[in-house]
């Protein structure tokens, strides 16, 4: 039985900054000691809408950065795309407003024990957890190259201080508004060869991750990805957030991405059966 992140807590956190950056909002929360328990790849589950809201489920957000020192004590930072009702409510909040947060949740990116050459690939707000990861990898002596892609320039989230922690940053946009016109996957093979990449970390839309896994597999690399499935609870009790994953014994199981993820071994996910139950899955009954 897998289990929930043991450091998870429920807390009311005060917003200390909420700024629009391109298509996103960068939000900083005074998180006290919650911050020191966060690892790159973890997420938080945020209650939205306030009292009397018709939205009854939490929303998951990747932790962009967590820092346990500074003026406000520990802080947690999020990068939020105002998409639907919940995220729009959240991004409309003011400084000093308080949000109900459960975190840190989920698995985190595994860090190589020996220095290695790592490629970090993010799509849209999927870049968020990669900057914290880059810092950790650099501290461990890794080479870190980064590729960020989005449909347009405004949807690339790449703050200055983030850029400092990588050896190279390649940007792709589908409309060509910034960097190379196209998708992240177009530039990966060259970068892998050029920088002698040994491990890929990815976060972004599921089709992007699936395409990265294909490249990673062909190149014989390790691929750690942060997946995103619709989550009702974020803490492992609802069984909505599953995807088909091959376990170490080779058995395919519908696996919860909130507690056995979001960070998973890309080679174990059955990418061609996403949103399906593949034939042969344990307990397959359809």
């Amino acid at each position: 039985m897998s289990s929930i992140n043991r450091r998870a807590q429920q807390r009311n956190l005060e917003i200390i900054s909420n700024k629009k950056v391109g298509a996103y909002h960068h939000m900083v929360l005074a998180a006290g000691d919650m911050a020191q328990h966060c690892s790159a790849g973890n997420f938080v589950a945020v209650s939205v809408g306030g009292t009397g809201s018709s939205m009854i489920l939490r929303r998951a957000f990747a932790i962009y950065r967590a820092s346990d020192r500074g003026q406000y004590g520990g802080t947690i930072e999020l990068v939020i795309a105002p998409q639907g009702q919940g995220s729009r409510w959240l991004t409309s909040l003011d400084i000093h407003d308080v949000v109900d947060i459960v975190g840190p949740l989920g698995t985190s990116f595994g860090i190589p024990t020996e220095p290695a050459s790592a490629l970090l690939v993010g799509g849209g707000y999927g870049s968020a957890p990669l900057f914290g990861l880059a810092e950790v990898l650099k501290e461990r002596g890794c080479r870190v190259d980064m590729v960020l892609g989005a449909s347009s320039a405004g949807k690339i989230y790449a703050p200055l201080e983030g850029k400092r922690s990588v050896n190279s940053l390649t940007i792709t946009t589908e409309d060509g508004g910034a960097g190379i016109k196209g998708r992240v996957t177009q530039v990966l093979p060259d970068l892998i060869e050029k920088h002698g990449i040994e491990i890929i970390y990815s976060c972004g839309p599921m089709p992007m991750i699936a395409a990265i896994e294909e490249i990673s597999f062909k190149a014989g690399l390790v691929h750690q990805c942060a997946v995103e499935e619709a989550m009702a609870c974020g803490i492992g009790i609802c069984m909505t957030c599953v995807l088909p994953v091959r376990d170490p014994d080779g058995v395919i199981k519908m696996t919860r991405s909130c507690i056995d993820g979001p960070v998973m071994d890309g080679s174990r996910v059955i990418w061609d059966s996403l949103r399906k139950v593949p034939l042969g899955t344990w307990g397959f009954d359809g």
Partner: protein
Amino acid sequence: MDKQYQAFDPRCRFGRKSFPSPIFTASGCAGSGKELSQFIGLDELGAVVTKSISVKPRSGRATPRMAETPSGMLNSIGLQGPGIDQFLAEDIPWLIANDARVIVSISGETIEEYASLARKLRGVPGISGIEVNISCPNVENRGMVFACDPVASKLVVESVRRNIGGELPTIVKLSPDVTDLVAIAGEVIAAGADGLALINTLLGMAIDIDNMRPKLAGMTGGLSGPAIRPVAVRAIYQVHAAFKGIPILGMGGVASGRDALELIMAGASAIAVGTANFGDPTAVIKVKSELIELLKERGFNSVASAVGVAHEK
């Protein structure tokens, strides 16, 4: 005796078992119990009602399995679970070791499957009851949900009662999606149910207007959460009016002590909290303490004394 010094009795009873708290987790809304135990002490609950367990392991349905709706959600999990054998080997011992009282929810596709689950559970040490989830498609009758068919409902309950023995209370969980709920309740009571669980989810659907397809992979799903509370109150009220002596485990949209009290006044003897756990992992504890406070404020000295008071003239 001065009211504030009077001890408050929070217990409830189903069949031969007494439970120390009136707040339970609803089936399928507490994982294996382990996940929730990080936020709450499971011993504070009346019982953990487990996710409905089947004879064989089940992968459940494809995703998306959920869609949020106004004050509610749809789910179509498809009873994902490890099957009764692994469940008895792993989940149950863990729950018991962690001081949880356990009501095992069972689901089958045939009457024989329910019987076989009951046989496996008979004599399992440490469990406090069985919840029979009959909102499952009956493969022997064109997939018609047992709970929609009075005869099939009755046969399921009879076969469970025969196999489980008289010790463990049998609570039968009904679906509100029927023309005559009281008639179905009558059948399962006649078949030997010690209690009823009301209500299971309502059948619903949501459509994604961008990709123009149902939001759930399973097309339809079960609607739960505060949106359905008025249906739960009505169902509990109707059934309690017809069968005063039968305890009801009330559920459907309970997210606060006020909600719980509403269902109790309608006729529920205890309350299960489902969807609210997703929005708030400590929901059950809040519901419990708020409920007891509200009861005390109104001069009740036990949960039992408030059951069904809305029926009094």
